[in-house]
């Protein structure tokens, strides 16, 4: 992929920022036992990476968070504004950028032989492991919790995230067939 962004790249970036915002409109599902609301929105970084690739995927998340910062209420629960970035879960939000980047990179590397399971695994590594590796320590520091407690508290969201990673795998494969966007990385210098 070239280092410069074409008009088309910018359209894709804007579309996925808007699409991730639209995912907030899906009503959240609350898992009865753990009581945490599962929103469709955190599927946004997984989908952006899986469909657009590392660079464009990460940039679409940068754009989304910039739109949130200027006050648009586009996060799940109608949240928006700079106040969002002051909360203890800010790591799970800023983590969308590296999460989308890693999901995208793994998809680019494994693009030729991509399967639903492979895409699901990529989405899981980037969208769950990378995301939590950033979100959990930030939560622990911000809310002055022991790391273990922060991890335990966050773990309630993992079942929902696994479902989202699985959906991402199915969607990414279907989109690859219907309308592929990621170009295979050539072994040429950038």
């Amino acid at each position, binding site marked *: 992929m070239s280092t*410069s*962004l*074409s*008009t*088309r790249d*910018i*359209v*894709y*970036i*804007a*579309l996925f*920022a*808007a*699409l991730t*915002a*639209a*995912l907030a*409109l*899906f*009503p*959240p599902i*609350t898992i009865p036992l753990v009581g945490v609301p599962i929103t*469709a929105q955190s*599927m946004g970084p997984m*989908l952006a990476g899986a*469909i657009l690739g590392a660079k464009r995927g990460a*940039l679409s998340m940068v*754009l*989304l968070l*910039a*739109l949130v*910062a*200027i*006050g*648009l*209420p*586009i996060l799940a*629960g*109608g*949240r*928006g*504004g*700079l*106040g969002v970035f*002051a*909360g203890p879960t800010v790591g799970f939000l800023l983590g969308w950028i590296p999460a989308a980047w890693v999901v995208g990179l793994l998809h680019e590397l494994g693009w030729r032989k991509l399967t639903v399971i492979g895409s699901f695994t990529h989405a899981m590594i980037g969208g769950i492991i990378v995301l939590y590796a950033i979100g959990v320590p930030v939560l622990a520091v911000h809310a002055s919790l022991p790391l273990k407690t922060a991890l335990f508290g966050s773990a309630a969201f993992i079942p929902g995230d696994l479902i989202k990673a699985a*959906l991402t795998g*199915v*969607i990414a494969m*279907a*989109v690859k067939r*219907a*309308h592929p*966007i990621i170009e295979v990385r050539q072994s040429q210098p950038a």
Partner: protein
Amino acid sequence: MSRSILHRLPAGLKLTALAAAGSAVIWVSDWRVMVDLLLLVALAFPVARLGRGALVQQLRPLLPMLVVLFLAQGLMASWTEAALVIARIATLVLMAGLVTLTTRTEDLIATVERLLTPLAPLGVNPGKVSLAFSLALRFLPVIAEEAERVHEAQSARGLGNSPLALALPLIVRVLKSAEDIADAIEARSGHDDPDCPQEKPQRRARFNPLAALKTVKE
């Protein structure tokens, strides 16, 4: 529609005020104060010469979520907490709506572009950034509307709330329209290189990607 005082305020000022107010309402913990703030923002709509329709349109997409949140908060926490949360969301939505409705996209983009100019030596291209901003702002309502339409169609076919049945057609449709939107932008700006220095962002901003998305949809 005539331009009110809110329309005439500089976009940079409105954006700054929105960011400040949006951050400030997080700290309001009394539901009565929050409801007062909500009424105040609602009163700003007639001041901005925006009809009741504009106000309702801002809130309608959120209505089901607000009802669910209100009941959930009321039953699990307390009804005052529920009122606080609902009033806060409605206030944030109306404030953001007020800024977007009284500010031309070109002005919003120009402001963002101006704010980013100092970053140019770091490889940030303000023209491209503002194009991305303006496109996302235009796409937001269209995609939300489109999601709603796909949802209705799937419900009618008995597919109910399956996220897959909803997300997949939406994404494929949106990706297909991206090509045409990019082509249309390039056709309007006369060349395909957004780096070109003499190009004025206003020319691109006047293009309405909504129209392109709508055409592709049919």
